[in-house]
């Protein structure tokens, strides 16, 4: 029998992990909702940004917040780059081609990272105070990451609901054709969305590097779970993705403690299949 304290600790870790996963899922979902293309290589962009933070903080000795801001800026630039160089030429292509183009980017980023930085695991070491709650050690790094990701998501919510361009983004994701008929320029909305989505990847990178070591195959470790969360929450559905992140992170964290990390993902997948049975349109979809 497993000590209930371990389970409680796992549940807490799951909750904290959920925040960062939600950030990833929201970034991907935002892009999908607006541009209708899934960036298979999204988490690999995160990986590139994580390397950037690593080099800025660990190699060049700048403070972590500089690394974080640089990561956000780099993410936005990468997002713009991906849209301009890869997505916009194939906006009207068959869906399989669109998936594959970003899949090619995944190959490219993974191998280029291997080429440049080898497969060594690299991590940013921060000296943070220790915290305990009911005899459970709490990772301050995770707590900070969780808090910041909630704040960023709140910021995204305000951006989407309170600004003009945010309203335009939501309008496009509701009806692409009607939006163009209203005289708005979808191209500009696409660009802003890609940049915001990329910046979210940058934020996630800065929050992940203080918890996990980065290596060229980091995207393969977090990518599938991000996709599962997006499907579970309903592709393009922001609130759904947010809720799904916490369900998935709890499943992974708790079953990871009971069995093993890999089994945690397998169980998460089983949950995922069962959920598709129960709620095919995503957990928050209205029953039709």
């Amino acid at each position, binding site marked *: 029998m497993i000590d209930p304290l371990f389970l409680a600790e796992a549940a807490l870790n799951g909750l904290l992990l959920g925040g960062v996963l939600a950030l990833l899922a929201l970034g991907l979902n935002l892009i999908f909702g607006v541009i209708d293309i*899934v960036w298979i290589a999204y988490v690999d962009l995160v990986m590139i940004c994580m390397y950037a933070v690593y080099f800025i903080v660990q190699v060049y000795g700048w403070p972590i917040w500089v690394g974080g801001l640089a990561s956000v800026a780099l993410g936005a630039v990468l997002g713009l780059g991906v849209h301009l160089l890869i997505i916009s030429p194939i906006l009207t*292509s068959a869906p399989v*081609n669109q*998936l594959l183009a970003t899949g090619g980017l995944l190959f*490219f980023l993974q191998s280029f990272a291997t*080429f440049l930085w080898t497969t060594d695991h690299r991590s940013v070491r921060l000296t943070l105070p220790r915290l305990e709650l009911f005899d459970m050690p709490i990772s301050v790094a995770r707590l900070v990451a969780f808090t910041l990701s909630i704040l960023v998501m709140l910021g995204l919510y305000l951006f989407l609901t309170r600004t003009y361009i945010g309203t335009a983004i939501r309008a496009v994701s509701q009806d692409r054709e009607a939006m163009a008929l209203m005289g708005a320029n979808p191209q500009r909305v696409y660009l802003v969305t890609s940049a915001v989505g990329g910046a979210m990847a940058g934020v996630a990178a800065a929050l992940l590097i203080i918890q996990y070591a980065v290596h060229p195959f980091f995207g393969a470790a977090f990518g599938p779970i991000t996709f599962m969360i997006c499907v579970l929450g309903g592709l393009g559905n922001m609130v759904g993705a947010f809720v799904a992140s916490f369900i998935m992170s709890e499943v992974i964290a708790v079953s990871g403690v009971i069995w093993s990390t890999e089994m945690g993902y*397998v169980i998460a*997948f089983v949950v995922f*299949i069962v959920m598709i049975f129960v709620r095919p349109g995503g957990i928050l979809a209205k029953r039709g």
Partner: protein
Amino acid sequence: MTGTRALGLLVLAVLAVAPFIPMGVMREYTIHVLVQIFIWSFIGGAWSLMGRFGLTSLGHGAFLGLGAYTTTLLWNFFGLTPWLGAVVAVALTAVFAVIVAYPCSRFQVLGHYFALVTLAVGEVVRLLIIAERDWTGGSLGVTVKPAGGDSLLALQFADKRVFYYGALALWLVGLHVWWRVDRSMARSAMEAIGEDETAAASVGIHVTRFKVGITVLSAVLTAIGGVAYAQYISYVNPDTLAGIGVSLRIVFAVVLGGMYSMLGPSVGTALTIALSEYLRVLFGVKFIGMAETIYGLLLILFIIFLPAGIYGTVRQFLRRRRPAAVAA
């Protein structure tokens, strides 16, 4: 049509005698590359059975890994001949494919959703293989236990030419299956489903039955391809036989070649394997990762500039040329 047929027979004749053409030291290597092309073309063809109807699976690595690992583990631990092992693998894969395809079809998991769900499936099979490391050797993979010399029962041969003819036969069987599906009622039904599920259902097409059926066929053939590959290489590894990497490679090859024609997947596979072999030889052990980097970059460029695939583009070009020639 007779011209095409004559050309086809000529190509077949060349392929049939290819292992005996004297090429000196290059012979072993050429045969090795050709065997890989045949096996992966077969797998690519199996993928395109689904892909051409809009069922974009990014998780065929799951079926591949299931096939390869089932026969390998049954042979290593219980000494069960791969012939029977393949039967077990096919049965398991079929069940697994139904488990994935049935809910997806029943609840209209389409397009991007389907791609992401299957992608997750492939990744989960990879993780499961890694997690069960006592049996599967984890991420280090596992070697097929040598039978000690040539053995038809163990499907192990020292001479690569045996595998060459086996793979050639497998490839031809794959083409035959593709042709049969292309000529069948199922094709019309699946095309209708691919266009509009509700409309297809309204004219009396049993949507779920056809979709699950084509998925099982595609998955089973992929598993057989996995068995063939594992027997040939006599080593299985979760990263080369399951997960995102290999799944995407299969799809790339097919889309590059063109998935709506019988030979498209084979052309694409031949090109991608030739390309990656060339890059591998070019860079060797220097610049680790460079070969894959260029591979990825070329794939993006191909997708952007040749959206119909190479074979498809060539055919479009020829078709455009032909009426002009008649007019002249």
